[in-house]
């Protein structure tokens, strides 16, 4: 905590006996609350919940120090199902609420749970500002390309032309590319995972947690009721190998069923190539999480032609991860520096002000 106050005293007193440093041997189900989970059967949210709960014992934080904050939407019910501190707030505002909490309680592990509508429509402003400030929170954006809770209107990530309840003749809006938005807002950690690959999802959750700063993890989440199969291309066994590429830092960009295709950079123009006698993995684009230009290129493997030349597989994994001072650290540092410079505050002197007079 930044300041030594009755708050810091209350919290540290309450921890006496539970040995501050010691982390109990949690298992995933220690993090599930007593509330019945109310998502539609088969909803992708279930896997995500499970993987977050599974990741919790590995983040090295006592559960009373974990806070989940959400906005509104199907995903936003998430905090109710976690046996940690939780706040289910209002539409779009989770990032702003998390910022206020993290800045005043930087020792807490703060998680924002949001959806595509929550983060990119009504809460778009808070989303980009959290990223540019680089508040040290983990931001899980459940993208199902639809409004589920309000029963099936198109969302800012629904592809143009989507036929939904509110767009019977097709949507006209150009869709957001969440990872490009995050990179454009100077996010320091930008990654993608999907509900249908729980192992990789779990890894990504842990990576997000490790990163200091706003860790933006987009998770493709299937809404079985209103947008089933939106990500089928990437999740179906058949199409998956050709349509997805898993990124690993320092490794060449290889994909395909037989791991026989790769992506090569012709100066800064990416191209899909077949690995053969002439082209070895060494000739391929080697993934570098710290290269913002390449991260941007990867984020554009998105609105590519559906097939043929210029079509790229969708990247999963960490596109971009760099160190930059996080906002809550800067706030603490500045507050402490001011305290040091100005010394112990003297309220009497402050009330008196620069000029006074006495009436006798």
């Amino acid at each position, binding site marked *: 905590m*930044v300041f030594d106050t009755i708050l810091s005293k209350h919290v540290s007193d309450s921890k006496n006996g539970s040995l501050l440093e010691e982390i109990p041997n949690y298992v995933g189900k220690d993090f599930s609350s007593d509330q019945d989970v109310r998502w539609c059967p088969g909803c992708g949210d279930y896997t995500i919940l499970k993987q977050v709960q599974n990741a919790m014992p590995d983040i090295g934080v006592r559960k009373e120090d974990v806070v989940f904050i959400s906005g509104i939407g199907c995903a936003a019910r998430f905090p109710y199902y976690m046996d940690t*501190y939780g706040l289910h*707030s209002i539409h779009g505002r989770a990032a*702003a609420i998390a910022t206020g909490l993290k800045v005043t309680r930087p020792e807490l592990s703060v998680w924002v749970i949001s959806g595509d509508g929550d983060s990119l429509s009504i809460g778009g402003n*808070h989303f980009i500002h959290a990223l540019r400030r680089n508040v040290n929170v983990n931001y899980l954006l459940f993208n199902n390309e639809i409004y589920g809770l309000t029963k099936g209107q198109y969302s800012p990530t629904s592809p143009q032309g989507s036929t939904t309840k509110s767009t019977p003749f097709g949507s006209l809006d150009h869709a957001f590319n969440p990872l490009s938005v995050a990179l454009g807002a100077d996010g320091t950690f930008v990654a993608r995972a999907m509900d249908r690959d729980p192992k990789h999802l779990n890894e990504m959750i842990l990576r997000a947690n490790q990163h200091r700063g706003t860790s933006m993890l987009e998770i493709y989440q299937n809404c079985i009721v209103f947008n089933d199969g939106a990500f089928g291309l990437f999740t179906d066994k058949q199409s998956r190998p050709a349509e997805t590429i898993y990124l690993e830092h320092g490794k060449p960009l290889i994909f395909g069923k037989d791991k026989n295709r790769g992506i090569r950079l012709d100066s800064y123009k990416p191209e899909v190539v077949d690995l053969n006698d002439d082209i070895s993995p060494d000739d391929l684009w080697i993934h570098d999480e710290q290269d913002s230009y390449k991260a941007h290129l990867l984020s554009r493997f998105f609105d590519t032609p559906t097939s043929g030349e210029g079509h790229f597989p969708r990247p999963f994994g960490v596109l971009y991860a760099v160190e930059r001072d996080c906002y809550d650290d800067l706030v603490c540092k500045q507050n402490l520096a001011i305290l040091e410079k100005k010394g112990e505050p003297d309220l009497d002197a402050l009330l008196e*002000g620069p000029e006074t007079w006495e009436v006798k």
Partner: protein
Amino acid sequence: MTKHSEYRDEVTIRFAGDSGDGMQLTGTLFTNTSALHGNDLRTLPEFPAEIRAPAGTVPGVSSFQLHFGSKEIMTPGDICEVLVAMNSAALKANLDRLKRGGTIIANSSGFDKKNLNLAKYPEGKNPLTDGSLADYNVIEVDVTKLTKDALADSNLSNKDVERSKNMFVLGLLYWMYDRSLESTINFLDKKFGKKPEIAAANIKVLKAGWNYGETTETFASRQVKVKQASIAPGKYRNITGNDATVLGLVAATKQSGLPLFFGSYPITPASDILHGLSRHKNFGITTFQAEDEIAAISASIGASFGGTLGVTSSSGPGVALKGEALGLAVMLELPLVVINVQRAGPSTGMPTKTEQSDLLQAVYGRNGESPVAVVAPKSPADCFETIFEACRISLEHMIPVMYLSDGYIANGSEPWRYPQVSDLPDIAVKFAPKSKEDEKFLPYKRDERLVRDWAVPGVPGLEHRVGGLEKQDETGNVSYDPANHQKMTDLRRNKRDKIADFIPEQEVDSGNEQGDVLLVGWGGTYGTIRTVAHELRQEGMDVSHAHIRYLSPFPKNLAKLFSGFKHVIVPEINDGQLVRLIRAELEIKATAINKVEGLPFGVEELKSRIHNELEMLNSKENSELELPHGI
């Protein structure tokens, strides 16, 4: 030359000039000197709405009004008797604020052809010479030239010379009102510590202004003396409403022992609170300039969830944006203080003009049944105590509190008998203790005041979830049960209403405890209504005055107090808001006097409107007497 002194018990001076002429500083320095002299006083600065309106034009005029006296001074004065006009635009913009027969001190070089054109006087017309000011006492002084003369042998640039001309005017006025130069000289020495030649030049010009008064024929018989006022003994300083709000927040931080988080988004006329607080971070205060109004309140709610006192500030339009999040804080039952420095609305309205038209927004302006507490300061200095009260109520009752200041008191200033920290009350914060083994924590369990404990993250065993969805009593689990919703609605309302047990009963500010007429006010109209009540009593009328600080819930005895008067009259700078609350909540027949011009009531104006209302009320009564059964 013989010197005549005239004694007066009050004087109102208005300093007016171009934004670049330093009129705010001139006024402030005169204010400080008068305060040190022992006068009671009130001030009101008025800034141009545009940041850099073209120099010399009417929209570029900045003015500062000071009302000081040897008697109780409660308002900045309706109209002034002395108008300092540094240029033609300043005269044009302010002439209607000058009393007939008042004195105009005009800087004649500000009335040259160029300045007259800029001020849009008709071609060839100069008010100083065309006889249009025959009703006034015009004193032309070529301030610009006299300043240049005074600094003839200095090496200062023309710009620096030009800049110090306000000191000439100040020196001249100090002579006119027999004030000491000392505090201003000290100020200049300190302000220009690193540039002693500038300090020396300003002091020289200040003295030149004084000497000009002393030696010039025109002024020979004009020295006016205003004696010390009888003011309660103690140590005083001068303070604006926004500054007092800042200090009150710092004091609440100290007295509660909590850290404070202040989330805000710049907006006129509230921004100075953000500026002020951001300088006091060593007091356990974090300030956050958010991306928008909604983020500002949301971040404050996040801080409150974590156990910090969350405060957010804005003005009407910004508060409208905060509405949904405020409802969340009502549901979460967390402390939160929302500062609204009201301005003229609706929509963007008139940002630099005052109004008290957000009372109903504060009390009712959210979706659903969403009770919050509402308090309002009555004067610049009272902002300190009232914001402290807002914090106390919010923390002790776990409820959002709206604090309704306004542009008039936010920028206005008055002497403040500042307290010692040892005199300040403590604010009791109750955190939920660590729960006992195997005991399920109930986040919405309440004490006898219906207040829940504040359970903050980091405390083992209290892990719980809260949110904006309706919740079951005690457990806080989501609930759509009809009976529970009724119960929770009742609880939230009753919790707010119970605050009435922890605030002072309503007192009469002046006049009898019962009688003919009770003037009821709230917020920044206090000084005017108090003065009016006093003057009406001097006219022989039976008039009392009550000023309401606690607007929701009302003090418990309010209805009873009101029922002791034949007429309850409620003057407000809006279209009738407190009067509606009084009629609706207390079922009291009250008469409204309203004004929505972006300006405060003048004392004379309000007096005559009260006379008119009473005349109508009495004639109605008489006609009712004649027709006992009505028609």
